[in-house]
């Protein structure tokens, strides 16, 4: 089915290696959260799976290697919710979501009734029906993120890649968004791989995690095994306290309050 396999994947940005001989497997219908400090290679990993960056090694979905795939075939299999999507001025929500049908429409043709129907279903699923005729650039942050997810669903992908999907959303919208993704995964059996900055959020949204650091897998497993005070200190250079809760580990930054501030007036 849609098991995602990366085998000895190496990618470079210019001369700087970003992914270094990386191998990992996400089972079909599974959910993987990718965490790691800035520049660890999280976005590059997702972009490599989406076919947007060149790489050595092999990435496959199911039994098919991605490299040999035509762009449109790949986009029918894998949808990416990018980190900072562009929202063209004046484009309606309907037209924006319809863009997800691009890989399904033959090059010289326009969309058919089936494409329109699928677009409507995605719009409905993400509760955007009332906003259908609004311009995407006038939406709120939460609405925008739902529009991007609706576009990705319209691709009818087997694998959904989310690059920092909750950045810029408030707590309530973060929660709603992640619940939406979970319900989609359960309903459609979509494999979900998300790069997530916030460790506590990451711990709650996937049963499996990978900690990337310097382009290699530093730790992998359940949130409790990946998010530890020791690993966070080593790879993020941050002092934290990890509190185990029923919903997974919670990361609390430790701010050293014994060091006197230099701006404090001296007596």
């Amino acid at each position, binding site marked *: 089915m849609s098991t995602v396999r990366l085998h000895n994947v190496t990618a470079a940005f210019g001369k700087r290696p970003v992914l270094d001989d990386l191998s990992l497997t996400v089972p079909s219908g599974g959910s993987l959260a990718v965490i790691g400090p800035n520049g660890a290679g999280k976005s590059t990993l997702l972009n490599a799976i989406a076919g947007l960056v060149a790489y050595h090694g092999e990435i496959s979905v199911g039994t098919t290697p991605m490299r040999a795939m035509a762009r*449109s075939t790949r986009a029918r299999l894998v949808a990416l919710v990018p980190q900072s999507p562009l929202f063209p001025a004046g484009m309606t929500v309907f037209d924006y979501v319809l*863009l997800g049908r691009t890989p399904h429409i033959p090059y010289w043709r326009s969309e058919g009734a089936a494409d329109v129907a699928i677009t409507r279903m995605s719009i409905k699923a993400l509760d955007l029906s009332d906003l259908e005729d609004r311009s995407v650039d006038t939406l709120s942050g939460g609405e925008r993120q739902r529009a991007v997810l609706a576009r990705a669903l319209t*691709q009818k992908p087997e694998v959904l890649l989310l690059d920092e999907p909750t950045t810029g959303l408030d707590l309530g919208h973060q929660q709603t968004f992640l619940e939406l993704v979970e319900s989609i995964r359960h309903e459609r059996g979509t494999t979900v791989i998300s790069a997530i900055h916030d460790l506590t959020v990451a711990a709650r949204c996937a049963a499996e995690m990978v900690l990337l650091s310097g382009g290699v897998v530093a730790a992998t497993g359940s949130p409790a095994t990946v998010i530890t005070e020791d690993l966070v200190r080593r790879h993020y250079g941050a002092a934290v306290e990890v509190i185990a809760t029923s919903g997974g580990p919670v990361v609390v930054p430790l701010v050293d309050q014994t060091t006197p501030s230099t701006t404090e007036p001296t007596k």
Partner: protein
Amino acid sequence: MIAPAASQRLRPAPAMAAFAMLAVAAVVSVITGAADLPVRGVVLEVVDRIPLLEVDSGFTARQRDVLWQLRAPRMVIGAVVGAALAVAGAAYQGVFRNPLADPYLLGVAAGAGLGATLAIITGLASTPLLPAAAFAGALVAVIVTYGLAKLGGAGRTTATLILAGVAVASFFTALQTYVQQTSSDTVREVFAWILGRLATFGWSEVLLVVPFVAVSAAVIVAHRRHLDVLAVGEGEAAALGLDVGRVRVLVVLAATLATAAAVAVAGLIGFVGIIVPHAVRLLTGASYRVIVPLSLVGGAAFLVFADIAARTIVSPAELPIGVITAFFGAPFFAMILARSRGAG
């Protein structure tokens, strides 16, 4: 069957309005001039041309000649050139994701001008090699402009591409002027042409450009959906399965060919590619599915109207048509510049 969302599809009303404008422009254009041609006679003449229909327009042989050998070809060439420049402008704006892209401002028209001048001084005027030479020049210009803008690199903004275009246009215009001055016997011919003109020698020039413009317009219209996909940027478009390189090459080639054909018969007419697509955008929305076809028809109507103005304002003399388009185009350009700054 579910109807597509109405908002961004080409609806009948704006399409009919554009065609109605073109029809009015066409009629006014052929009845305007020194010799008096009544509207009724013109309509009957057109009906008479329809196979199997025969009506008497009451026109004299001279009136018939004025209509069919002077005014009609001029009106048609204006419509074809206007359609070509407007659709090329819309295409460049979509491909470069730049609201200020225009055949004239990108230097494409100047490149075509140089190519065409070289063709004219070597005696190739009014042969199919004229548009071919214009196309070669235009293609070099668009490649150099794009390359220069890319060199501008990191902080690539709307302005970078246009600045590159201005540099390329100046350079090609300088070369063109040099070539023109060093071949003085054809200098008058080239000079009249470089300011933009629609005076024709009958139908031969119409036949020369129509095939090129028809092919380019067909390619651009066929890509209107892809231009909407490109609006989300190169990376996202690629992630959506679009072959970005193929779309870019095909659309830029088509727009450049349309520009070259227009320049080959009408010289340098600026701003049509800015005015028309943006007027359409303001009236109907941002989707290229609407902008491309409406620019085609609207561009035809606009240039026919501009030609009427060029012929009547200082009658019996004529203004170069490029003066009229620049007169409307410059304020438009300023407005778009202000808006795109606001959008960041």
